[in-house]
């Protein structure tokens, strides 16, 4: 009852010193690792020697090359959003309405899982292997010479393959949640299947489609790795321009200004997605499994067509990964196809420091990020304290902003005293916790809102105090959210690069940065080997977390829909 907020608090709900302490500690951390870096970024962009100045921003906004990068970013984001949403919808529709046997649904999920958990350059490398000047398809298969893989179309293709799973995961529960009786009703009124789709199914999915589009737009806008490899000189985009400005021209202020330009569309999309689209859903997604349709909503012919299409896409994805594995096992793909373990030898000697650093950082960020997510999610949903609502919003900032902005902000904020963290592992760990921990927050909030208030009251009525109630009732029920948080923080710690490329140092480096170095040095073999290694580690850890979840999760507890949600 929303009205209860203004009513006097129930007996026993006195101000808890533990809650106050935890809230204070979280605010302090958020202030330090979210608000402060962003404020420093803004200060750097908007001041000049202590005075307010728009000169830095003006320099960017009048540079024709940078303006092109801005429009290119928007164009790429729009195209990725459109194509990815359509692709995701076809997949989701086939899964929800195609009456697929369970193994086929499993295969479908597996084929979209792969791009979601891969390191960022995976599809980009495979694109070069396939369509580059000496590409398997362009050169060997088609015999084309002098083709260039770099530019809008290959960046678009690669990003769509990487990000359409987000649309699939967003749209599938929406389609599954549409009451099949509504479609059955339309059919019984004499509408054809196509008409039912056009007049009922599609209109009911529109908020979901809009949501998927915005998520993909944001993902593409923030993507740094793919355009860095594939966009080339002819198609500059903002994140790569900001990176080149800082690492190539040592112009921190210019890079900051570019990332500020990126911030505006990113914020608009975030606010649209959070406050506008998400309130327009017709279907409440309860997390319950897809109900089986009581009638054939697609004709056999269309069903086969859809299946064939999905199979084709899944095969394309599989081809990329097989190619990557193959490339890691031959001397030089496209030139010398003799099998060798040389690349793995390289990564386990020259690259062993990066592997060790990455594992240490991911190993630290995972439990801390998981705890952070559950704690903050629990506090903002269940406890009353000063600034509760704003805490949730602030905690989402680093998650919503493109990594480039967060990375540059951290670089500016923690490079000099009073808080000098550059060169330490802590700066990377903190970046991961506050950037990916919010997944755990969202999972916790979602789980807690599924848990009826009466459960805690029942415990209280039976004589349990708030401590016992939390330990025995609430905590076991939000455990799945904790594991979801662990999973996401670990996966992203292994695969992220856009923010942390600015934060690595001689003392602490990352596998993803090493992959990038390899690609720029054209040592594609070791790059492929690194990518395969990351995929393997990620899959092993996902498997372990899944097992732990099954072990800890009681049979009746609610489930988290996806470890990769958001």
């Amino acid at each position, binding site marked *: 009852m929303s009205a209860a907020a203004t009513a006097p608090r129930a007996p026993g709900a006195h101000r808890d010193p533990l809650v106050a302490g935890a809230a204070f500690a979280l605010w302090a951390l958020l202030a330090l690792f979210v608000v402060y870096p962003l404020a420093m970024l803004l200060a750097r962009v908007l001041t000049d020697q202590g005075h307010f100045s728009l000169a830095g921003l003006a320099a960017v906004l009048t540079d024709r090359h940078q303006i092109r990068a801005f429009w290119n970013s928007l164009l790429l984001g729009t195209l990725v959003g459109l194509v990815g949403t359509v692709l995701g919808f076809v997949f989701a529709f086939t899964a929800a309405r195609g009456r697929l046997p369970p193994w086929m649904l499993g295969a479908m999920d597996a084929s979209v899982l792969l791009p979601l958990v891969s390191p960022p350059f995976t599809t980009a490398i495979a694109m070069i292997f396939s369509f580059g000047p000496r590409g398997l398809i362009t050169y060997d298969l088609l015999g084309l010479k002098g083709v260039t893989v770099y530019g809008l179309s290959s960046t678009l293709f690669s990003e769509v393959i990487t990000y359409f799973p987000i649309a699939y995961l967003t749209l599938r529960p929406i389609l599954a949640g549409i009451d099949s009786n509504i479609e059955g009703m339309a059919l019984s009124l004499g509408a054809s299947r196509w008409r039912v789709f056009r007049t009922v199914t599609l209109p009911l999915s529109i908020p979901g489609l809009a949501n998927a589009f915005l998520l993909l737009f944001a993902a593409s806008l923030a993507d740094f790795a793919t355009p860095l490899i594939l966009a080339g000189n002819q198609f500059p985009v903002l994140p790569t321009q900001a990176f080149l400005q800082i690492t190539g021209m040592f112009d921190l202020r210019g890079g900051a200004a570019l990332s500020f330009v990126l911030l505006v569309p990113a914020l608009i999309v975030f606010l649209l997605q959070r406050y506008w689209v998400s309130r327009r859903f017709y279907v409440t997604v309860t997390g319950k499994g897809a109900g089986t349709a009581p009638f054939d909503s697609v004709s056999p012919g269309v069903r086969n067509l859809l299946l064939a299409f999905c199979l084709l896409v899944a095969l394309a994805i599989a081809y990329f990964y097989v190619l990557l594995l193959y490339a890691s096992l031959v001397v030089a793909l496209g030139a010398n196809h003799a099998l060798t373990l040389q690349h793995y030898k390289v990564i386990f000697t020259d690259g062993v420091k990066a592997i060790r650093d990455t594992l240490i950082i991911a190993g630290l960020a995972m439990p801390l990020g998981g705890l952070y997510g559950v704690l903050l999610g629990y506090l903002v949903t269940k406890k009353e304290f000063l600034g509760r609502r704003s805490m949730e919003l602030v905690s989402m900032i680093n998650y919503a902003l493109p990594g480039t902005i967060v990375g540059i902000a951290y670089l500016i904020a923690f490079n000099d005293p009073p808080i000098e963290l550059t060169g330490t592992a802590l700066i990377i760990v903190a970046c991961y916790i506050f950037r990916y921990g919010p997944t755990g927050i969202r999972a916790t909030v979602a789980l807690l809102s599924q848990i009826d208030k009466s459960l805690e009251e029942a*415990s*209280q*009525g039976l*004589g349990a105090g708030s401590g016992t109630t939390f330990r025995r009732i609430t905590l076991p029920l939000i455990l799945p959210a904790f594991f979801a948080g662990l999973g996401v923080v670990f996966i992203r710690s292994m695969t992220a690069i856009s923010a942390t490329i600015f934060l690595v140092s001689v003392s602490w480096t990352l596998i993803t940065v090493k992959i990038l170095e390899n690609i720029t040095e054209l040592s594609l073999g070791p790059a492929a080997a690194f990518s395969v290694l990351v995929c393997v580690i990620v899959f092993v850890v996902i498997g372990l977390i899944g097992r732990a979840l099954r072990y800890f999760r*009681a049979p*009746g507890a609610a489930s988290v829909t996806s470890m990769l949600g958001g």
Partner: protein
Amino acid sequence: MGMDTIGVRVAGISKRYTHRVKGEIYAAREVELDVKPGEFLTLLGPSGCGKTTTLRVIAGFEHPDAGRVYFGDEDVTGKAANQRNIGFVFQNYALFPHLSIFENVAYGLRVRGQAGGEIAKAVGDVLALVGLAGYEQQFSAQLSGGEQQRVALARAIVIRPRVLLFDEPLSNLDAKLRIQMRQEIRALQRRLAITTIYVTHDQEEAMAVSDRIAVMNQGSVVQEGSALDLYHRPATDFVAKFIGRVNSIPGRVAAIGADGPAIAALGTTLVARTLPAGLATGSAVQLMIRPEAVAIVAPDTPGALAATVVSSSFLGEKTEVQLRCAGEGLHAVRYNAGPAEPLAEGATVAVCLPANALTVLPPADREAP
């Protein structure tokens, strides 16, 4: 379970909410209740009448803006729910989904620090009592609605609460099971002799389980009494219409005689039971009569009124008859002892409205649903 049975007293409980549109509204307004030790009291009323708020205040889940709650002589107003030793059964059962049935029922005992052996025995006993022996290792998701209801009941009574509280416990069950469960709840409460407060919006359920019923409307208790009292002697238009079905006939007080007030209605003068306070000769009133009291009699019966049959539906045990008498619609029920001649539509019949079945009330107020 020979506990020291105590009564519950609710003294002037008020609870306000700030509503977005309506502004400040009372969910409960100076509610007074006195539940005797071992008594089964039901709070009955339409949704939003304040019955659940009152129950939650008694449980300690909500804190009243004014008023006190006493368990026996003890003032428990300031105590949290976990200090009150209550058994609460929720509408949605609120079974802990991650705990087995055994652990659900054992929960309150574990909180009280009882020994394992004692707990096992108590849980076994109470599960047998509610007919769920052998369900110990199941989980709530595997149980039917009725079984979940029984677990919720077992979990509430195993701690030997001082007071047993039910919040619409049967509303998620189908009609047949609802009747069975309410009988079980009643039998169990008799056996355990626990003071019980029960909330429902279903008047039949309330009449079936309770010793006493408190009818609530708009945050206040409007009438208290046995089912018999409320049905036959409603104090207000709202109670008359909320409990059972009733014919309401407009009239005017013609005279006040020794054997009851004479009311001018239906083109004649009818003698009714007592006149409520505040009404005098000339006052506009409404006459209430239950459909089953409207007697269809032989045409030559003295004092009978002529009526036309509008419709007649045979329903097996009874026949529902819709009549028109002096321009007013009149609803009658005839119970069928054996095969009887059906009444033809349009036929003229004679009806008798017995004085002891006619209740006089002030003219309809706007509170009626």
